[in-house]
């Protein structure tokens, strides 16, 4: 209470005094030292393994894409349509900040086979090639800040008011005329500063990693992404900081404040995310692989509109014959098998779009519903924002799979288109026995696969509401803490 008496000499700087007292008290505590050291070690390990995984993946991804592109060109002389069957693979890019938050990347396929006639699902999910223990969670920077940081803050701050209450020093402080707002902000700054001590080394290392990775050249608005990331995690930390102070002020003893806070932490970090996922599955059911394939295969035959594909094709052929004024498809000035295959391909597009977009929309709806749980759990909002900014969320995965499908359609129609013209030029007549081969020069009319991940603007648009909810949490927790601390005087008075 040397600090308190000091405050009488210099009344205006109460916030600073309280902050200094809290800060010094915490960093002198041996328990804090150990907790901080463990946390720094974990964060460093997480960032290091994240960085290692990111660079290893990016190298392999670029090499594999280069190799299959090469294989596409060097597949050997063959019919252009066969070349489309041979196809190519689209490999997924790692998100720009996925070394920090790899989001859903372990659970999404990172390669997609692009071939004639079929739209495929992305396959090769890292989680499928991992042991069951991987389901306990991934050790990465985001996980540590999302799960461990709040607990650290709780440990540092749960006695802030309840401890002083128990010791009787709070009454003393207030009787000296200390403004409780100063008290709140002072404690917030002191505890927040101590928590930062455990995180700053990692931020420095993170910055170092970033400068080494040189991803800033490829990602859209990279600096802004990093800045926003820092902002949302700070916001999340503030929510727990003020909740801790508020609960501490309301509690009669440190143990009740601890139990309440740890309970809320377990609730928000472990209970809500899983419950929200289960509930979203029940509200918006998504098909299993078997159902998805079965309905899609059936729709390919019977048509989405109930008109069988065979009937549609017949109608198309009749129109084509009428257009060219011929009485048999073989008399068309086009290589009919290629035209037919391309048309069938286009009929399938509708079916594929219906099913694949439906699947994506269901997933998005599930995710948005889970985001709504942000109202009772700030982590839900933070998670979505963090994944979005990292480029390891559904939005980025969807862009990848959609780009691959666009590329596939382009590849197939280029090959069929070439065949339909070149084959008929071959000997002037169109017949199914009119075959031809193409070589590398023809295959090279299909450009290599590449895609542009969503821009920062698209990310902020998708997750705007999550950001608003998180901001509301920050405000609400400050208001709550202020109100709780305000009540202290009434109780003590």
């Amino acid at each position: 209470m040397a600090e308190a008496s000091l405050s009488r000499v210099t009344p205006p700087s109460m916030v600073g005094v309280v902050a200094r007292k809290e800060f010094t008290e915490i960093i002198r505590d041996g328990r804090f030292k150990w907790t901080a050291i463990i946390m720094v070690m974990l964060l460093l390990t997480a960032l290091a393994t994240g960085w290692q995984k990111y660079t290893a993946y990016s190298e392999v991804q670029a090499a594999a894409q280069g190799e299959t592109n090469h294989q596409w060109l060097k597949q050997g002389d063959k019919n252009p349509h066969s070349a489309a069957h041979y196809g190519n693979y689209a490999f997924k890019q790692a998100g720009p900040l996925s070394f920090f938050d790899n989001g859903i990347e372990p659970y999404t396929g990172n390669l997609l086979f692009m071939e004639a006639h079929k739209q495929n699902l992305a396959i090769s999910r890292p989680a499928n090639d991992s042991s069951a223990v991987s389901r306990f969670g991934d050790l990465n920077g985001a996980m540590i800040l999302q799960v461990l940081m709040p607990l650290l803050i709780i440990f540092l701050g749960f006695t802030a008011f309840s401890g002083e209450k128990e010791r009787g020093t709070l009454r003393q402080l207030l009787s000296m005329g200390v403004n409780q707002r100063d008290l709140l902000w002072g404690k917030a700054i002191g505890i927040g500063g101590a928590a930062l001590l455990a995180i700053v080394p990692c931020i420095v290392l993170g910055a170092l990693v970033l400068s080494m990775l040189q991803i800033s050249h490829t990602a859209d608005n990279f600096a802004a992404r990093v800045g926003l990331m820092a902002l949302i995690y700070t916001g999340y930390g503030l929510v727990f900081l003020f909740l801790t102070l508020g609960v501490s002020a309301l509690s009669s003893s440190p143990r009740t404040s601890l139990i309440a806070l740890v309970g809320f932490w377990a609730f928000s970090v472990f209970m809500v995310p899983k419950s929200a996922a289960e509930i979203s599955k029940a509200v918006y059911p998504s098909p299993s692989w078997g159902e998805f394939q079965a309905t899609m295969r059936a729709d390919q035959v019977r048509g989405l509109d109930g008109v069988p594909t065979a009937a549609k094709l017949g109608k198309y052929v009749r129109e084509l014959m009428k257009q060219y004024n011929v009485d048999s498809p073989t008399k068309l000035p086009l290589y009919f098998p290629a035209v037919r295959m391309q048309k069938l391909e286009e009929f399938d597009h509708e079916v594929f779009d219906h099913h694949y977009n439906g699947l994506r929309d269901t997933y998005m709806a599930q995710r948005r519903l889970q985001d709504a749980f942000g109202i009772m759990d700030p982590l839900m909002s933070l998670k979505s924002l963090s994944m979005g900014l990292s480029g390891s969320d559904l939005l980025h995965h969807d862009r990848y799979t959609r780009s691959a499908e666009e590329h596939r359609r382009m590849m197939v129609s280029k090959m069929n288109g070439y065949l339909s013209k070149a084959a008929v030029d071959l000997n002037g007549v169109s017949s199914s026995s009119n075959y031809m081969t193409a070589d590398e020069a023809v295959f090279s009319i299909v450009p290599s696969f590449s895609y542009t991940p969503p821009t920062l603007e698209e990310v902020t648009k998708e997750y705007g509401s999550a950001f608003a909810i998180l901001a509301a949490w920050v405000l609400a927790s400050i208001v709550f803490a202020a109100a709780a601390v305000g009540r202290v005087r009434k109780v003590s008075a």
Partner: protein
Amino acid sequence: MYSLIVAHETRTLAKTPSLLWILLLLTAAIAFGAWASSSVFERQSQGATAISNYENGMRTKMHDDLAKYEEKVKASGGKMEFAAVNHAPGEGPPQATNAGAVGSETESFAVLPPTGLAALSIGQSDLNLNYIPVSMKNIIDATKDNEIENPVNLKAGSFDIAFVIIFLLPIFIMAMSYDLLSSEKERGTLAMVMSHPISLRKLMASKLVSRIAILLAVVIAFGVGAVMAVGSELNQAETWARFGFWLGATVLYSIFWFALAVLVNAAGKSSATNGIVLAGSWLAFVVVIPTIVSVVTSTLYPAPSRLDFIAASREAQTAAEFERMKALDQYYYDHLELVPGGEDKANDFLTLSLANNASIEKAIKPLYDEFQNQLNRQEDAVTKFQFVSPAIMMQLAMNEVAGTSADRYENFMKQVFKFHAQWGEFFTGRFLKRDPLTTEEWKQIPTFKYVEEPFSDVLARLMPSLLGLLVVVAALTAFAFSSLRKYRVAAR
């Protein structure tokens, strides 16, 4: 004295509103977990049924064509002919007479049925495809597919009963026991109790007995309830044997957390400090250590890159094509209906394509095996490292009990490969001989039936986890109770 304290503690506990809340939350969590995990398996079995029905429907249609054709041939007194493979419908004998067409253009789904207790732990079964399409085509291709689910949900993980037991139950236990002694000490009642002829250890034991009894009564009652509600094969002894092991593991795991609370209390710190230490240990055992074990095992035995695997299998494909096919053949093998020069040639292309498939499969099988081996090494490493955290031991034990372990899936895949070979054998011979398939032979088309592994195998895998838990719990309990000796009853 002993029973008096147990009775007193039980009565006091029963009147604590927080305990009521804890038990209510626990039962709600178990019920929610049972519902959630049973819906996962329901969805999977619906998927297996839907796609099996679709493919079986295709085959039934072929069979009906065949039966009609057979009738016609019998009536006219002719001989059955062998159809050319043709993707487009046409005249002549039906496709079903061609074993190659039936065997390569329809799929038969090999299904891994969930055990009766699958709902207890989802494990990796939300990721793996539990029904594999088998045809004459390359089987490695068929293993590429995964069960589909929103990756956001996969990341969140399942709210299954294993989650309730491994993650939530310890929290409830700690909430019930973090202040076992410290609260009495803080209230000053401990010194009073200790003035009676009872040792501190006996007091502690009786406090624990009442708590464990209440908690386990609820867990067992709701565990049995959950199994009755969402379990299956309840008339089989094996199901209940599995459930017995589940109970045993759960009891051991609960005692671990109670013993930890005793140990922390024995240090004689305040309730708040006990709370911090226990919450920290929970975080370490349940979250931090498992994720570190995961990082360590996947760093020691990294899965080979799927990306490399794809590049290599393409290489094999190109090589096979170069070897067997002229440039044009490839086209026809993709589109048999376009084959010029008669129907016999179409069959030749199918022959070629099957041979191609076989050589690609041969080329990439070693790569595939390397994947499996590496995954096995990872699993083996986890089996060794599991002893560092009771949560890992528990998870492995629960996956075994529920039949959602990696080993059971591997056993299933072995049977799938065998079935694929059987399927190929049945159709290839008939196809190569150009023997028209008859309805009589149709009845012999192989079907897949999963053969459950012997229970002794399950037990053998279950034992390390259970024994590990037992040893850890026994040691911790002994240590905790012996450290009570140094406990100071009265504040200095």
